[in-house]
């Protein structure tokens, strides 16, 4: 009985914390002039409302559940020296801030917003400019990162950090962010059960989105444009890639999507447009590529030996210089039932499927794969001649990369 009483009493004592969460104003005309002083005076679950202004206070440490809201984007400046916000508590909301000029370091991963080992962090509607790392979460879970705008003007890959960087996290939700000018737009390392959607990642130095050792994640409806390379998914499994746009990742060694050592992935409904290589696959197992558009790429799909049990079906391949290129005999990958604009066959029984098989790997692409210097003969008469003669007398092109039922209509 006594125990119950004391429990009730204790709860009553705690009540004010929940019911009387205050709003503390910070700004030129208010009681608190600095954010740090406001945080030190705040109680758990208070809201700190930062009014428009310019604040440079060194690293601001948040060690209790707080809601930090900026009004008209107050500027927090890191003066190229420090980490700006360090979050070391659960249940923190950060929104409406403008964070600029975090420090750069070769030793520490300085970021504009750094979250350490926490859960239920919400970071939304912030503007981040010229930071080393933008938003950096490590060992955290159940966080959301939405509607932020991240940009950097750094040119050199080594002096630049990633826009949104996640390390050992799970159940993270990333939506509607716009990231430009960083090293990688979004970087995942050992991140699981997370969802990335509707983000735009463009003009980043290395990748738009980069997965390492991250599994069971989904990314959908994102746009990756003009990055050094679009998306790299490496050493991961069960990653779903749905309805993304990979556009104009155009450079000597650039690609829309690189898959390296991954298995059980799903690539559905994506559009690959104007990339040097649309989809590049190395060492993949059981990857399903369906309902995608490959438009006007240099190479639509580049598939290396060691890709196994892949299924490529119901895709449109239109206007690519080479539809599929392969370094030789690939293992069992199924290419049945795609639409190829280069297919010249006929359909006598009117079932919508071509009656003759289509071999997407041309002899010239095979030659170029084996002797890269011959790329110099791109668009030359002699290679057209070689391709045509190979079509009449197929001898050299890999017979196991074949679409036995190419469709005659676009999907």
């Amino acid at each position, binding site marked *: 009985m006594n125990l119950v009483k004391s429990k009730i009493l204790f709860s009553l004592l705690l009540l004010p914390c929940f019911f009387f969460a205050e709003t503390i104003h910070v700004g030129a005309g208010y009681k608190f002039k600095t954010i740090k002083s406001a945080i030190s005076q705040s109680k758990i679950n208070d809201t700190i409302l930062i009014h428009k202004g310019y604040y440079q206070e060194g690293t601001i440490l948040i060690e209790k559940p707080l809601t930090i809201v900026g009004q008209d984007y107050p500027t927090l400046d890191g003066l190229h020296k420090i980490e700006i916000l360090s979050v070391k508590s659960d249940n923190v909301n950060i929104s409406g801030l403008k964070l600029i000029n975090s420090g750069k370091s070769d030793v520490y991963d300085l970021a504009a917003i750094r979250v350490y080992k926490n859960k239920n962090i919400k970071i939304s509607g912030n503007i981040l400019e010229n930071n080393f790392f933008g938003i950096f979460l490590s060992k955290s879970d159940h966080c959301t990162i939405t509607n932020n705008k991240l940009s950097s003007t750094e040119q050199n890959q080594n002096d630049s950090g990633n826009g949104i960087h996640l390390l050992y996290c799970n159940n993270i939700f990333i939506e509607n962010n716009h990231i430009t000018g960083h090293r990688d737009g979004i970087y995942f390392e050992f991140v699981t059960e997370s969802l990335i959607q509707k983000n735009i990642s463009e003009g980043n130095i290395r990748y738009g989105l980069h997965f390492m050792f991250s599994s069971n994640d989904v990314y959908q409806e994102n746009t990756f444009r003009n990055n050094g390379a679009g998306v790299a998914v490496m050493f991961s499994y069960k990653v779903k890639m749905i309805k993304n746009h990979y556009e104009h990742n155009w450079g000597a060694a650039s690609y829309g999507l690189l898959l390296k050592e991954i298995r059980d992935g799903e690539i559905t409904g994506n559009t690959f447009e104007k990339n040097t290589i649309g989809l590049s696959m190395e060492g993949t197992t059981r990857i399903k590529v369906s309902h995608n558009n490959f438009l006007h790429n240099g*190479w639509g799909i580049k598939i290396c030996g060691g890709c196994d049990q892949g299924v490529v079906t119901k895709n449109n391949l239109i206007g690519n210089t080479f539809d599929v290129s392969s370094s030789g005999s690939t293992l069992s990958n199924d290419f049945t039932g795609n639409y190829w604009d280069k297919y010249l066959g006929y359909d006598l029984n009117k079932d919508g499927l071509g009656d003759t098989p289509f071999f997407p790997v041309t002899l010239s692409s095979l030659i170029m794969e084996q002797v890269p210097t011959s790329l110099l003969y791109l668009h030359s008469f002699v290679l057209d001649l070689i391709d045509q003669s190979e079509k009449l007398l197929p001898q050299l092109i890999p017979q196991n990369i074949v679409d036995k039922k190419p469709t005659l209509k676009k999907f």
Partner: protein
Amino acid sequence: MSRIIKYVMFDILRNRFVIGYCLFIMLITFGLLGLEEGSSKSTLSLLNIVLLVVPLISVVFATIHFYNSYEFMELLLSQPVRRSTIIYSEYFGVSCSLSFAFAIGMGVPLIFLNQGLVSVYLLLSGIVLTFVFVSIALLGAVNSKDKARGIGTSLLLWFFFTAIYDGLVLLIMFSFSDYPIEKYLLAFISLNPIDLARVAILLQMDTAVLMGYTGAVFSEFFNSWEGLIFASGLLLLWAILPMLLTVRIFKRKDL
């Protein structure tokens, strides 16, 4: 000499064939650019016209014209005119009128529909290739009195430069693919005027990135002043050298 060039030129320009050639090129260019305005696909098709059609027409027309004006040349030779003057007039007359027709045919649509550096390269390459292949064709024609044989030789030369030579270089690439042969390739490619023109044009387009490492080596070379001077110098040599040989042979020839 200029008076004879004028005669030859006006004679050709009044010719229905050259007017047809000009209209044909114009129609195709308008068609291609109109179908897909500003896209690289239409530029690639134009590239193929410049690299295949222009040399072919130049070769065939120059050879036929040479044989058809045989009597005219004989008549001129009864006058106090030097032999070299006559053959030079034939050369400049044919190549000037053909390249004029080409320049109008492709230039007008390009000015309207596709302005840019690539268009300039296309036009210049077409004009230079006309000169080169007229000179090569005359070399073929001056060597034989038989018209059919002369045309055959010229066609063979055309085919050699468009396909056979490239095939041979590809073979070399295959045999030496383990070695860094980019520099030598540069030399090999430079020896073929059609390849030289193709690479120079492709490097101005965004397809250039597909050419990988070798493309980068070439791009660095062709986008420098030395490379540009080297390339245009070589093309000029291709226009001049066969012609010098032709003059030499024509001078000693028993007509």
